[in-house]
């Protein structure tokens, strides 16, 4: 089911709430908790929204068309910030090698360990759980992550 969702400039964002989560999917997500042991698992698997719905739509729905993520960035006034300038609350977008946005989350920690900058990200994995993880401790390719901030 789609809900009313617009950018700051009143452009409509297609979306839908999924309510499909099979028991076998839920069980599989639990198995992956053992693979990513340094991750803080906040919730059970929730199908209604995806990572983009969590990052840009307050967990109300899923945003599944990546072209509209670029529209949100543009309309809502996000600007890209370099990785050494990020702050808590900035949006992290994981790009594929071909330039598609594959995953999103919100920066929650920006610690420096021995000069290496390893942010922790609040995100959601597919129809699975909400998690807090270090930038690369996730199933997504973290070689090309860009950070964005609304400054006004």
């Amino acid at each position: 089911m789609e809900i009313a969702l617009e950018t700051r400039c009143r452009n409509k964002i297609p979306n839908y709430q999924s309510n499909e989560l099979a028991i076998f999917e839920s069980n599989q997500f639990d198995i992956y908790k053992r693979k990513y042991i340094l991750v803080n698992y906040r919730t059970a698997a929730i199908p209604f929204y995806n990572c983009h719905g969590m990052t840009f739509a307050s967990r109300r729905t899923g945003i599944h068309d990546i072209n509209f993520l670029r529209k949100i960035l543009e309309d809502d006034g996000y600007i890209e910030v370099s990785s050494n300038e990020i702050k808590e609350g900035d949006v992290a977008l994981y790009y594929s090698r071909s330039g598609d946005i594959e995953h999103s989350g919100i920066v929650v920690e920006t610690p420096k360990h021995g000069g290496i900058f390893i942010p922790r990200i609040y995100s959601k994995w597919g129809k699975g759980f909400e998690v807090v993880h270090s930038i690369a401790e996730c199933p997504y390719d973290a070689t090309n992550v860009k950070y964005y901030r609304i400054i006004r």
Partner: protein
Amino acid sequence: MSISLENIPKSVLESYLFSNTPMYLYKHLLSDTYVQELASKFDAERLITEFNDLMDTELDSLEKVAISYSILIALLKKQPVSFKEVFKKLNTTKLEWAAEIIAIGMKQLTPTNTLIINVPGQYRINSENSTTTSLINRK
């Protein structure tokens, strides 16, 4: 020999499980060697049969859902003759993202460029392949 539900690579299962969007699922499965092997080992008719057989069952395991999407994308990759009609006839209602993935596949794989080449009259060339259609204008 039917497509086995056993020994499905972890990469395929994880692509499905952690996909955030239909585009993510489509691209990750399309580039997976497992899907490429499905597309090369089996003809389109066989893939359609396997897909329909799966749709006639209850999709009650991660393997069944992941392989259903894999077959669908292998079929898109093969681009069977009159494939638009083929995909219209497939019963995909059990797969949440099937319609989106078919739309993405058709858009990405359907020839979109028409190349018009003028060649001298003594030559006669008709060239057509899966990604490019060349129309040769004879002068």
